[in-house]
């Protein structure tokens, strides 16, 4: 096996498209997950085209209508088309989740890298802050923060970022500690490279893999967190078509099962996609696994 791959290194590389295809066939979970996620991303881009009606348009004659040709996912209490609302809901959940993950990765990676690379009092200050934040179960802390900040999407994003960044800081720090002991870092230092340039040019590029795997997983996790906050009445407020808030509308209406079912399926699909992507990425990027 290892002999074959070292031969492959000498052989001329196949064209990029062929290589990508081969990858996709070798890592089906990555492929399936990406397909679902891209479908949802297209939905956010073309929501106005895909959705038959305005997600806020009320039509009281149709209130609580069961799924039909006119309303494929049924209609809610105010006669709004649930299908249109689910489609438009992607415009809130997906960008919100990406923003939270990007903020957390940037903040966590910077602080974790600084802590791991320089050590000392800075390390202690950063990591103790992270420890304290991680001492709360994430949903509980996010709930408390958004309760204090007040409801709304921006505050939900802030709460989720506060909860998430320490995980990246901790991960990055442990990666840095592993990498900085490697010979090429020692060699770079022996050649007189400045600390900052060692950090950015030699250490960081070699510490990415578990971070990317985790980020993919967290996009799904944050969608769950934000929709949970909205479901509990703390995140996105009605009438905005957010999935968690939509599920809350179906809470006491067992007979009108379509109120909660379809937005929940959307959440499930996106999280499933992220889990699949994360697993596929791990299998692909981490040969030890």
């Amino acid at each position, binding site marked *: 096996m290892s002999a074959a791959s070292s031969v492959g290194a000498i052989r001329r590389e196949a064209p990029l498209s062929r290589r990508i295809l081969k990858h996709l066939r070798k890592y089906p979970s990555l492929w399936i997950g990406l397909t679902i996620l891209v479908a949802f991303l297209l939905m956010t881009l073309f929501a106005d085209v895909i959705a038959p009606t305005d997600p806020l348009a009320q039509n009281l004659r149709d209130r609580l209508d069961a799924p039909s040709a006119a309303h494929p996912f049924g209609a809610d209490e105010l006669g709004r088309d649930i299908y249109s609302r689910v489609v438009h809901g992607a415009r809130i959940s997906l960008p919100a989740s990406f923003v939270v993950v990007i903020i957390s990765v940037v903040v966590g990676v910077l602080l974790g890298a600084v802590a791991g690379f320089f050590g000392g009092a800075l390390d202690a200050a950063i990591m*103790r*802050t992270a*420890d*304290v*934040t991680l*001492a*709360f*179960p*994430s*949903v*509980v*802390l996010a*709930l*408390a*923060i*958004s*309760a*204090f*900040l*007040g409801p709304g999407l921006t505050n939900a994003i802030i709460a989720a970022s506060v909860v998430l960044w320490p995980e990246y800081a901790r991960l990055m720090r442990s990666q840095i500690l592993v990498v900085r002991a490697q010979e090429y870092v020692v060699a770079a230092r022996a050649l007189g490279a400045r600390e900052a340039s060692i950090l950015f040019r030699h250490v960081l590029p070699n510490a990415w893999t578990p971070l990317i795997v985790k980020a993919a997983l967290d996009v*799904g996790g944050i969608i*769950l967190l934000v*929709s*949970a906050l909205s*479901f*509990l*009445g*703390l995140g996105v407020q009605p009438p905005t078509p957010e999935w*968690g808030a939509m*599920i809350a509308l*179906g*809470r006491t209406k*067992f*007979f009108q*099962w379509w109120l*909660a*079912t379809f*937005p*929940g399926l959307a*959440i*499930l699909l996106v*999280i*499933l996609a992220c*889990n*699949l992507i994360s*697993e596929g990425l791990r299998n692909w990027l981490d040969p030890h696994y």
Partner: protein
Amino acid sequence: MILQFFLRRLLFAIPMMFGISLVLFLLYNIVQVDPLVMIVGERAMDNPEIVAAAVQKWGLDRPVWEQYLTYAGNMLHGDFGSSFLTKRPVLEDLQLFLPATLELALSSLVFAIAIGIPLGVIAGVRAGGLIDRAAWGLSLLNASLPPFWTGLIFLTIFYYFLGIAPGPGRLDPRMAFPPRVTGLVTLDAAFAGDWAAFANALHHLMLPTLILGGFTLALVLRVVRASMIEEMRREYVRTARSKGLPPRAVVVHALRNTLIPLVTLLGLAFAGLLSGAVMTETVFDWPGLGTYLVRAAANLDYPAIQGGTLLIALIYIVTNLIVDFLYGVLDPRVRLA
């Protein structure tokens, strides 16, 4: 030696708790609301006596750092203030709501372990087999399901349409609660010899346990499977096999070593259970900490939010401490680290 190890861990926990109280205090101060309103509530603001008493008790006329010390001191005495909603001291409320969460968390843990270990062993011993792949699919699905939604769907199907599960709550509305001893309805019913209530309480636990335990189940399954695969490759397993031990006995050999990583996992699982409780309890009208916190948050009941959050963080830290300690007892190598 063990005592020393335990004391060292305990010492680590103290700055943690300090930090946690600081975080909660900061939350208090970051928001643009007068802390006085937060403590006495809007309606009591007209009453100068109550206001003066609160200013005195919480040191609101002194500098911020002194306020923090007063605040931390009050908390150390178990004084979290009074809930605006229930008008009771928060500590009393917490004592009332904690048992329901504990009961749900414990039954979820038992469920996850009872199903997760055997399934994980089979999946690990026959890696790549049918059961292994089915277990993989199940845990992937479980990790992707939003618990508050699954709870609703289960209630819709099993309670509303099929009628085989009871509705929300801990007991049927017509059922009398057994006299409160532990606060866990199943245990209290058993103590009182009220077997009808016991059966009913168990039945009510079924759906929320399935939802909340599902997440932990996936976690247990994954860890047992992975360490089972690892253990089955070891030399002592090969020795056991070559001396003709029956396969079942070989698996038991390997399983004993698998259980050590499982202990660490339980701390993590407990955090998941507490987070999950916040998301599931509301759906099942389960009168636990999750419900309490969510209701407090929706009504801006700040003392209640703080007390509830602090209690959950404390439970989490103590659990991790116990897990750490158990780990040290089970695996002597850890004590040296």
